[in-house]
């Protein structure tokens, strides 16, 4: 009778795809060498500055990766080159993003003063010193128009999603297709359309018209996101509700929609984030007004137009105001995203 010795030591499974310490060392050496090489290239040619140095790096990294691995054959070398190129290209993509955030923060914070968020431009020309005036009128105008737009676009968007997911009607495919087509409507065309209808008929620029042009741009985002959200509702809930004798209307309003309520809020917030910075349609519909105003039938200010009109003047103070407005607008978009993100992570944890 043979007995097998049972080993108490379980060998750790080898994971050849994992990064090891030698990979880290290799990458560090590679980047270091490429950095030096790039500095040399920059010294020899006319390249200069961070971008010049990065261009040199982008050239040196794949070359050195190739030289270092070619003795192991083309298969490995091509993998190393691809890794180097893909990483370098992605890092290059983030440069403008970082630049935008940093520039907007640096230049925009110069426009801030104690009453920047509470004053308007009623008695202050755009070229006046920075410590006068503010963006309150633009914030109020943007809030009003976005609020009206949401009140119209969010229910319509959710209903479109309900039609596709719950009702699965005859036109479900058509509706989905049309919403996608609508998301491609250029914002200026939406503005032009509202101008040709609302502004012309009711005789003038107004907050109403601005809000309606935003509806056209907001609806597709809300509909798309809501559709994705409604799809995650388990069918068991629907069948359970039907089994209890509920109608489809009751099932939708009392079971399906409440289940994903926070997801629908995310859809609304993403829709708002999409339109809060729209400039072109508002030029044609809401125009601009320098003072705080809550009238829906008159021209009204908005953050994007505040930026746009300040920028067009070419004056230093006006340009600083444009950056200040950009910082506020970017802050608003950022906050909206943080809200959407928090809600959707809470939803997915459920």
């Amino acid at each position, binding site marked *: 009778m043979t007995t097998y010795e049972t080993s108490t030591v379980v060998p750790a499974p080898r994971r050849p795809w994992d990064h090891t310490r030698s990979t880290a060392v290799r990458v560090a050496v590679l980047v270091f060498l490429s950095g030096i090489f790039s500095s040399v290239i920059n010294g020899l040619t006319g390249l200069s500055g961070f971008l010049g140095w990065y261009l040199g790096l982008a050239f040196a990294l794949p070359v050195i990766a190739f030289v270092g691995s070619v003795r192991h054959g083309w298969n490995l070398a091509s993998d190393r080159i*691809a890794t180097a190129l893909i990483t370098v290209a992605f890092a290059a993509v983030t440069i403008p993003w970082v630049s*935008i955030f940093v520039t907007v923060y640096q230049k925009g914070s110069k426009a801030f003063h104690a009453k920047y968020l509470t004053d308007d431009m009623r008695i202050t020309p755009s070229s006046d010193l920075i410590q006068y005036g503010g963006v309150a009128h633009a914030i109020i105008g943007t809030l009003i128009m976005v609020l009206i737009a949401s009140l119209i676009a969010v229910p319509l968007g959710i209903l479109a999603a309900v039609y596709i997911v719950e009702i699965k*009607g005859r036109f479900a495919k058509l509706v989905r297709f049309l919403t996608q087509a*609508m998301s*491609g409507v*250029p914002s200026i065309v939406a503005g032009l359309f509202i101008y040709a*209808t609302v502004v012309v008929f009711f005789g003038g620029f107004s907050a109403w018209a601005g809000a309606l042009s935003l509806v*056209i741009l907001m609806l597709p985002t809300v509909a798309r996101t809501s559709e994705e959200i409604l799809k995650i509702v388990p069918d068991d809930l629907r069948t359970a509700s039907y089994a209890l004798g509920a109608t489809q209307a009751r099932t939708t309003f009392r079971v399906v929609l409440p289940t994903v309520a926070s997801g629908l809020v995310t859809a609304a917030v993403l829709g708002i984030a999409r339109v809060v910075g729209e400039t072109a349609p508002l030029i044609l519909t809401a125009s601009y007004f320098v003072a705080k105003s809550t009238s829906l039938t008159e021209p009204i200010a908005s953050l994007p137009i505040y930026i746009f009109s300040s920028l067009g003047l070419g004056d230093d103070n006006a340009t600083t105001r444009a950056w200040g407005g950009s910082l506020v607008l970017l802050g608003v978009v950022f906050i909206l995203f943080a809200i959407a993100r928090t809600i959707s992570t809470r939803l997915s944890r459920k």
Partner: protein
Amino acid sequence: MQTTDSPVAPREVHTYYTRVDRVFRGFVAASALFSLVVLMLIAAFLLYRGFEIFSDFGFGFITNSKWDIGNPEDTSTAVLGIGAMLVGSVITAFIAIIVAVPFAMASALFIEFYAPRFLRTVLTAVLDLVAAIPSVIYGIWGYVVLLPLVEDWSGTLYKYLNWIPIFDVQTPIFGRSPLLAGLLLAIMILPIVTSVAREVYGQAPRDLIDASYALGGTKWAGIRTVVLPFGKSGLVGGAMLGLGRAMGETVAVYLTLNLVFKTNFQILASAGGNVASLIANKFGEATAYELKALMAAGLVLFLVTLLVNFLATVIVNRSRKIV
């Protein structure tokens, strides 16, 4: 022996909607078709307002490059055409696509296959955030930060490559050129193209990639033989979505491209424009007749972007269906 067929006929089961449900379904269907109504109204109203222009200039409105209102009192002296603007739209959008697509491919591959897991969720969120940066902020950044850089690069391009017609200019003064607008548009559409590509690449069949590993292939071999062929049509669709965005962009192009009514193929020259920025530019002080021309231009832009988006949607949907 027991027979399986029972003598009692099975109860007939009806499914029908109650009156409440029929009202509900009708109501939802009506709201869902709102987008159809809006799209048709856009086309109808722009055609209605711009019809006079189409009947006055016919096809010349699209091919002619001149924009001259002539005597404001007499509309017959006006010569209006958006030929140069259409060419400008196409050139800037194509520069954007040519620059953005390789970078979008690399970014999508990086996020999906190279980035560590914690970074992947962060980067996906960042991608969404960057896609939501308002175009006016891209525009002001392009005007203040990108313009001097591109002017510098244009000088270099002109110095060494001016024997290529598109890099030639009459006078070597560079500024708000199609190259600048195109590069800015590339930066603007990159997030959307990347997220479409990333989504499609993420659906590449895992077992085929693993099979490639099992055969001793490297990561790049798996990507080259499985992921890229699989994601090809998705990438094309994403690129076309980006193309539609780039052609319809207004404010960023308005700020970074000098509006000149001349068909300009020299991408370094400080002259050009696109249809959308033309509308924003002329809208403020347009005469009644000119306003009609802007409506007509809006209709052309609407139809072109609708067509591009239609193709993009079809291609992206088809690539989804393969899964």
